[in-house]
């Protein structure tokens, strides 16, 4: 059974129809990519899945549970985490605090325990901090744990956002253009990291423009063009699909990114 099912979803903003009858089944334990030209509606799909926007029609279910009417923070707690295309960190907080925020709903103690720093508070905070440091070391940022996030380079910011999303202990990770602005060695490291995550049983659902990255990494690819899914399949099928080539060729300059 697929982990995330998007069934017949449409979305319009006023008169602007952004998505039409979109059907996507994202399996667990695999890396699934959503590609498509600029403005195709990819980020909108993520906004619908995470509950930031409501679909105009259709339904979205996660592990069999219908997400309609569920508040975004509750969707996160069900096990969906995301990163943003235009990176949204907490710039004045330290890296450690950024990641610890992701552990919000996993850290529990009473107000009284917090007020008097009782053992239950200290224990929960210590565990949360240790896990956050562990995640930071995964993305090789642990040496900067006490620096504030606005001191990071672009690539480092993406990595921090990645660690922060993992901190919510998701079952499905949504990554919106995770390697944009990264150099090729950073990309290779992140690719390895994403594979590791899949191998631990997480589902990964990512949006990416970098075709080399997508074709090398992903198990399945769906193509969105003008709000409609025009193709879906294994990377080789997508590479050879006439509709996909047409969609990209129609845009001239983008054609060369297809390997």
């Amino acid at each position, binding site marked *: 059974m697929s982990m995330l099912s998007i069934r017949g979803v449409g979305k319009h*903003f*006023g008169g602007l129809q952004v998505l039409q009858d979109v059907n996507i089944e994202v399996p667990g334990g695999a890396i699934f990519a959503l590609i498509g030209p600029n403005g195709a509606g990819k980020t909108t799909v993520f*906004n619908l899945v995470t509950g*930031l*926007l409501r679909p105009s029609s259709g339904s979205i279910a996660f592990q069999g549970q219908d997400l309609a009417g569920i508040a975004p923070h509750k969707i996160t707690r069900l096990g969906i985490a995301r990163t943003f295309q235009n990176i949204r960190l907490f710039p004045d907080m330290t890296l450690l605090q950024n990641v610890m925020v992701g552990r919000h709903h996993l850290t529990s103690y009473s107000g009284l325990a917090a007020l008097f720093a009782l053992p239950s508070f200290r224990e929960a905070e210590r565990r949360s901090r240790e896990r956050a440091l562990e995640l930071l070391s995964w993305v090789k940022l642990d040496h900067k744990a006490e620096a504030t996030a606005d001191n990071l380079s672009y690539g480092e910011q993406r990595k921090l956002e990645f660690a922060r999303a993992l901190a919510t202990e998701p079952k499905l990770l949504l990554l919106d253009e995770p390697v944009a602005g990264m150099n090729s060695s950073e990309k290779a490291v992140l690719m390895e990291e994403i594979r590791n995550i899949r191998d631990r049983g997480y589902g990964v659902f990512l949006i990416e423009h970098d075709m080399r990255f997508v074709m090398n990494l992903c198990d399945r690819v769906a193509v969105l063009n003008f709000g409609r899914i025009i193709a879906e399949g294994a990377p080789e099928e997508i590479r050879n699909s006439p509709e996909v080539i047409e969609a990209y060729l129609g845009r001239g300059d983008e054609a060369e990114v297809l390997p």
Partner: protein
Amino acid sequence: MLEQQLVNALTLGSVYALFSLGFTLVFGVLEVINLSHGAMFMAGSFAALTVVTRLKAPLAVGILAAMLVSGLLGLAIDALILKRLRARHAPHLIPMIATIGATTVLTSAAQGLFGVEVQRFPDELLPTREFIFGSVHVRALELAIVGIAFLLMTTLFLVLRHTRQGRALRAIAESPKAAALLGINVEGLFLATSFTAAALGGVAGLLIGLNFNSVTPLMGQPILHKGIAVVILGGMGDIRGALFGGLFLGFAEVLSKAYLSSQMGDAVAFGLLFLILLVRPAGLFGRVLERKA
């Protein structure tokens, strides 16, 4: 009796509209909640009072003085404070806080210069004629107030609609960046907007000062709060909304004072404002914006 109240309501409402027009113009163009607009109102009133009492100038000169002094103060606040905050891309609340500071400075300066007591225009300066239509008495002063307010508002509408500068301003209200790309002198028009808005506020202050024949350093505070109610009623940044909202508030206030309770008139305005914010934050006439995810 009702007709008499309606005349009062129209007088008050047209001044509220004039005041709110400047307030909403600044929000529409500069995206600043300019809480010093009430101080412009007060300054205009004092400027006119000073000119007519100290220099023995006629009331028409007083009106010009009100526009000029308030306009220049508005210009100064823009050039000295708001401009720097724009350059720094400070979030919207920051300029609002700065204009609170400017209000405190101006109010305190007025208290120092003119004292805290109520000041009055000399009686011989005020038109005393009354027109009688059936059972309704209309003072010449009230006619003049409504006339001046509508004259200025019409002029502003025409300028915004039919001149090059007016079109440029509307382009800026849509998107300052795009306007700058079109070669529009955005900074210059920001300054002009601040001047115009403050000048209108100053005249509104003079008109209210004349209507109740009372000028005090603190007179800007209640009108500011009403101006806020009006622009929220009409939709922030919406010029026509400010006109209707101003008239509406004038009528609501006068009628509830007449028929409910004299003090609760003010509570009606703010109660209404509070409700509107909860139900329709974009205003009664405003478009509801979809929140950006």
